């Protein structure tokens, strides 16, 4: 072990505390739990304030569009009376090109308010661009830390594009090779610079998305006179789902089903130097979605504000080929060039809508900008260069890392379900040898959205 490495990992709590300007100890309870709602409500951001900060920053109020052609397409494979109307929230219209600007707007606002000189975020995704753009607008310095390349110095084109975009907004980009030691570099940089940790998992990072839930509830109500039956959310770290669900509920859409969707990357190891460039999606996949759902506090803050199992009704997967297929369908049928990763929930909605009534509304709650490197064309081209076969057939036969199977027609685009109870059991694994109090059971019941008795049964 390297001394410096051990030293920084041991100083983790001290560095974290200084860099988020938030004392998490305040919310800790006696046993395993903490007061989640108090932590969320305690930061001085109500929905009006969030909306106003976002409005000032060209964030939010994105168009909600009915995808009539894609709905018509999905209905070709639905039984009579089935085939929900599919709506799409065009989050690419936000400053920096994704819903992540909603999160960054609050984090950067908080950093500015607390007097930090700069912000740091660890992300190889759209969040980096969002933080960089908002920091530029706020006059703060910005460092984005990316896991970027393998031991052969090969980078995912999608990640290179994000780096370029961050640099376009004046940010410094620190690019790292594959491995969880990114966190060590992140701590070192926080310590060296004294900048604010614009974590995706702080209360600000989550509260910023509540406006998205509000907008969906209100706009669907205005357009069709009811709340949507379902909102489908691409799930990775869990923040997008948590914030959207909280916003929907806060706006009164209590009965709207919250559905998580991820790209199926089963079998690929996220810390593997070899697997790193064998995947065609760097986010929105099960490699993040499942571990962060079943152990939210693995994140870069002491207590993650992203706790998806508190809100999730269903978790479904689609494969890489299906997302590429829908990315192309969105361009061909609706004239919208977006994604690909953000289209994960769209691909899932195409299949799921076929099981819902034709009077139902399903909202796909994001799109993201697309461009060089970050596009169906370079991502498939990169896959082929890395020995991944591109085939037509049944996408459910796809083996991540070996092939990408594009549906041979629309009828083959089908989702798969992940068992909610398996996820809950996996969450509870950590506590199976712990002596649990009544309060602990209640905390776990809230975490998993089940009763204390069901927690006991699962344990």
């Amino acid at each position, binding site marked *: 072990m390297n001394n410096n490495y051990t030293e920084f990992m041991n100083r983790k709590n001290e560095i974290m505390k200084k860099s988020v300007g938030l004392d998490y100890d305040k919310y800790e309870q006696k046993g395993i739990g903490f007061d989640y709602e108090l932590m969320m409500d305690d930061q001085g951001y109500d929905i009006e304030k969030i909306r106003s900060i976002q409005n000032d920053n060209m964030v939010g109020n994105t168009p909600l569009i009915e995808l009539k052609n894609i709905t018509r397409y999905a209905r070709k494979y639905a039984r009579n009376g089935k085939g929900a109307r599919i709506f799409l929230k065009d989050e690419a219209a936000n400053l920096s090109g994704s819903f992540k600007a909603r999160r960054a707007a609050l984090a950067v606002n908080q950093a500015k308010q607390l007097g930090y000189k700069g912000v740091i975020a660890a992300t190889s995704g759209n969040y980096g661009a969002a933080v960089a753009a908002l920091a530029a607008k706020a006059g703060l310095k910005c*460092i984005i830390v990316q896991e970027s390349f393998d031991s052969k110095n090969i980078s995912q084109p999608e990640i290179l594009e994000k780096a370029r975009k961050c640099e376009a907004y004046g940010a*410094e980009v620190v690019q790292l090779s*594959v*491995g969880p030691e990114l966190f060590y570099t992140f701590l070192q940089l926080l310590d060296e610079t004294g900048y604010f940790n614009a974590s995706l998992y702080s209360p600000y990072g989550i509260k910023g998305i509540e406006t998205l839930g509000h907008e969906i509830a209100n706009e669907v109500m205005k357009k069709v006179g009811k709340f949507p039956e379902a909102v489908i959310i691409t799930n990775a770290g869990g923040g997008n789902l948590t914030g959207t669900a909280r916003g929907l509920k806060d706006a009164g859409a209590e009965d709207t089903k919250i559905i998580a969707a991820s790209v199926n990357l089963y079998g690929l190891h996220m810390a593997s130097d070899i697997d790193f460039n064998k995947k065609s999606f760097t986010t929105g996949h099960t490699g993040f979605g499942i571990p962060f759902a079943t152990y939210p506090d693995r994140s870069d803050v002491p207590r993650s504000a992203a706790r998806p199992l508190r809100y999730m009704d269903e978790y479904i997967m689609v494969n890489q080929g299906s997302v590429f297929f829908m990315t192309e369908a969105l361009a061909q049928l609706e004239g919208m060039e977006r994604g690909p990763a953000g289209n994960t929930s769209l691909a899932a909605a195409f299949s799921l809508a076929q099981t819902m009534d034709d009077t139902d509304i399903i909202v796909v709650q994001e799109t993201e900008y697309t461009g*060089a490197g970050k596009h169906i064309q*370079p991502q498939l*081209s990169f896959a082929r260069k890395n020995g991944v076969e591109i085939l037509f057939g049944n996408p459910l036969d796809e083996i991540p890392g070996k092939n990408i199977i594009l549906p041979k027609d629309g009828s083959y685009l089908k989702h798969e379900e992940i068992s909610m109870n398996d996820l809950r059991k996996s969450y509870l694994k950590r506590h199976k040898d712990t002596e649990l109090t009544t309060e602990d059971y209640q905390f776990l019941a809230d975490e998993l959205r089940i009763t204390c008795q069901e927690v006991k049964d699962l344990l």
Partner: protein
Amino acid sequence: MDKGSYVRIRKTLLKSDERSPNLPVETSKVPYKMWVKGILQEEADLFDIVTVKTLTGRFETGRLKEFNPPYKHGYGEFIPEILKLREIIHNDMDGDSNE
């Protein structure tokens, strides 16, 4: 390369035997590295160990890899399967009438 040039450096942060435990074998066998860009602080040749001043004003030392570091990502070689995807989508929607 002149002092004041914009360059990219590469630095090994942890040697393979210094890395975090519990890594997949293939990752544990290779060093943990960093790339960063900045302004070259002294005249140097490619592959020299140099210091750069980064965009936020930090100093980093590492091996000089690139001068005016290029953005190499693009749209790549065309993937003809995308043409077939388009054909499938339009046939699904409009059948033969589209041909």
